[in-house]
């Protein structure tokens, strides 16, 4: 009830570009100090939503609240936010120091205060030696650090990140990801982070909002999203390699499909108990039990190995289950060969069941 508990609140936000509805009746509550990741494939509206929060795009309807204040009509600079962009968007003709202090000078903040803030940001981000260089003389990772610094000196409670690591190579991305996480624990302010990379989302977020078609499909902790996806879209989107789906029917607490007959005892139904009818079961490749552990699994069956993809740390096996391809993730040292028959075990408690029509979790 009290708006002050929330750092950022999105209320019934709509945004249309002409006839195209980019955001539809979107609601999102973000607590103080939370790290929120907006995750989705391109065109899902995640960057649009971030731009609306920043005030860079005007919503067609609805409100944005930041720090208990309705900022829907406020300029970006008045909203108490700092923002980091994918292309870094550093002012190319200014030094790093110039980039960090330009906005502050413009806001007529006293010179010694500017110096103090720049020094603090440079210290936190370890960019002191770069202060007198121009962006062109910096590496991608250094540029992104300066871009974060520009948000940092604004002394604000909310940080917005718009795919900040997408322009970096894989190794640098992993390094900077850890730095951003460290920054969050150090500053403890609210961070809203847009990405299409599920690893970034899972590792950074306190809560993830998975978006599709301008709507939030699920908004909860990484753990919840991974283990209890609310719908088939989320289940399919999260996890790599992605979840196996098998269509079948539930009858009398049992799920049956070609090659499968699972007793659903131990499955945590949303409604408390099973309802009979058509359903889809989703099983993550890494939740398929193989080797000696199979004997402990509630359901066991034989599958034929079709393709083996060794990846070093694990091995991905494409098998045939009841005439359909089925992915199994095994240990990297597992030795399996094409054409072999392999015994696997499934645990209904770790599976997810979805309604065939609504695709919602059962």
């Amino acid at each position, binding site marked *: 009830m009290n*708006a002050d508990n929330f750092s950022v609140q999105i*209320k019934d936000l709509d945004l249309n570009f002409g006839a195209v509805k980019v955001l539809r009746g979107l609601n999102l509550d973000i607590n103080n100090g939370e790290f929120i990741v907006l995750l989705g494939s391109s065109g899902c509206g995640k960057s649009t939503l971030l731009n609306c929060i920043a005030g860079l795009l005007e*919503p*067609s309807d609805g*409100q944005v609240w930041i720090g208990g204040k309705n900022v*829907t*009509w406020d300029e970006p600079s008045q909203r108490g936010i700092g923002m980091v962009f994918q292309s870094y968007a550093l002012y190319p003709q200014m030094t790093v120091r110039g980039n960090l202090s330009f906005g502050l000078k413009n806001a007529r903040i006293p010179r010694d205060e500017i110096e103090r803030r720049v020094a603090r940001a440079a210290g936190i981000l370890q960019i002191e030696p770069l202060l007198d260089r121009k962006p062109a003389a910096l590496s991608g990772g250094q540029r992104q650090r300066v871009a974060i610094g520009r948000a940092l000196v604004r002394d604000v409670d909310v940080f917005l990140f718009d795919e900040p690591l997408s322009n970096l190579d894989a190794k640098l991305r992993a390094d900077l990801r850890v730095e951003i996480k460290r920054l969050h624990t150090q500053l403890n302010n609210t961070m809203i982070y847009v990405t299409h990379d599920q690893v970034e989302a899972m590792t950074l977020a306190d809560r993830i909002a998975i978006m599709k078609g301008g709507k939030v499909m699920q908004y909860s902790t990484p753990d919840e999203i991974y283990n209890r996806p609310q719908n088939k879209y989320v289940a399919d989107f999260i996890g790599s390699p992605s979840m196996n789906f098998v269509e079948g029917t539930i009858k009398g607490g049992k799920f049956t499909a070609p090659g499968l007959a699972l007793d659903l005892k131990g499955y945590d139904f949303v409604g408390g108990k099973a309802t009979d009818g058509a359903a889809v079961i989703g099983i993550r490749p890494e939740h398929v039990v193989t080797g000696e552990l199979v004997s402990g699994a509630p359901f066991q069956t034989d599958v034929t190995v079709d393709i083996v993809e060794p990846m070093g740390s694990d091995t991905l096996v494409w098998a045939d289950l009841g005439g359909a391809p089925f992915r199994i993730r095994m240990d990297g040292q597992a030795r399996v060969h094409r054409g072999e028959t392999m015994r696997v075990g499934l645990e209904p408690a770790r599976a997810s069941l979805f309604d065939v029509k609504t695709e919602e979790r059962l």
Partner: protein
Amino acid sequence: MANASTNIAAAGPRGPKPRRAISGRNIMIYGTLGLVALYYALPLYVMIVTSLKGMPEVRLGHIFAPPVEITFQPWVKAWAQACTGLNCDGLSRGFWNSVRILIPSVVISIAVASVNGYALVNWKFKGSETFFTILIFGSFIPYQVMLYPIVILLREMGIYGTLGGLVMVHTIFGMPILTLLFRNYFTSVPEELFKAARVDGAGFWGIYFRIMLPMSMPIFVVAIILQVTGIWNDFLFGVVFTKPDLYPMTVQLNNIVNSVQGVKEYNVNMAATMITGLVPLTVYFISGKLFVRGIAAGAVKG
């Protein structure tokens, strides 16, 4: 608009910030642009209205007033009767001269430059880049520096003062910009395509006609727009390299309007000016963004 999921009464600002359509900023922007547009459009307007007035009305001096009585007589006179020197068969002579200059010049200059650009991109040979660099820098040399040597060259070839000579001059001076245009375009064609065609056994001309040419229609249109307006508007080459009965339209127009003999017929002059401007204006208004693309290509140095 109360929504069940919203637990706080949605008070205060929501949706887009209301803006007055007539804000100070808008008045400034549209006002300035409107005035500027007026300044730019005015000469065309004056040209048209003057050309539709009779001389008595022109002498009244209401240059901005629309014609009281519309007459097409000035247009007829400009086209068929206006005098240059002893000839009094109007601008039509210059018009047809310009057409006869334009068509071969456009075709030949574009053919030469497109093949040249293609050779520069896909069939580099030793020195090809050097020649191209000289070509581009050469385009900055004032024409006056090269006028007389070309006169000698054409005279030696026996085509000085002929249409053929002028076509050659247009081909030469159109080459830098057109070659640049085609070279930049062909560079953007994936090299794999060229390699695949070579593996399939196609040669220099085979690849040009069967692959490059069909893929490059847009850039050919841009080149045509550029050349049609450029060659039609040329004055200097026309006056230097042709003889009076072959003068292109611009030269004849200038001779008609700026002749010192006789009474000045401003309405006929404006009709003549308008007729001369019609070809490039038509190309401009029809081609729209392609025209912009053509001149932008000229602005971006390779």
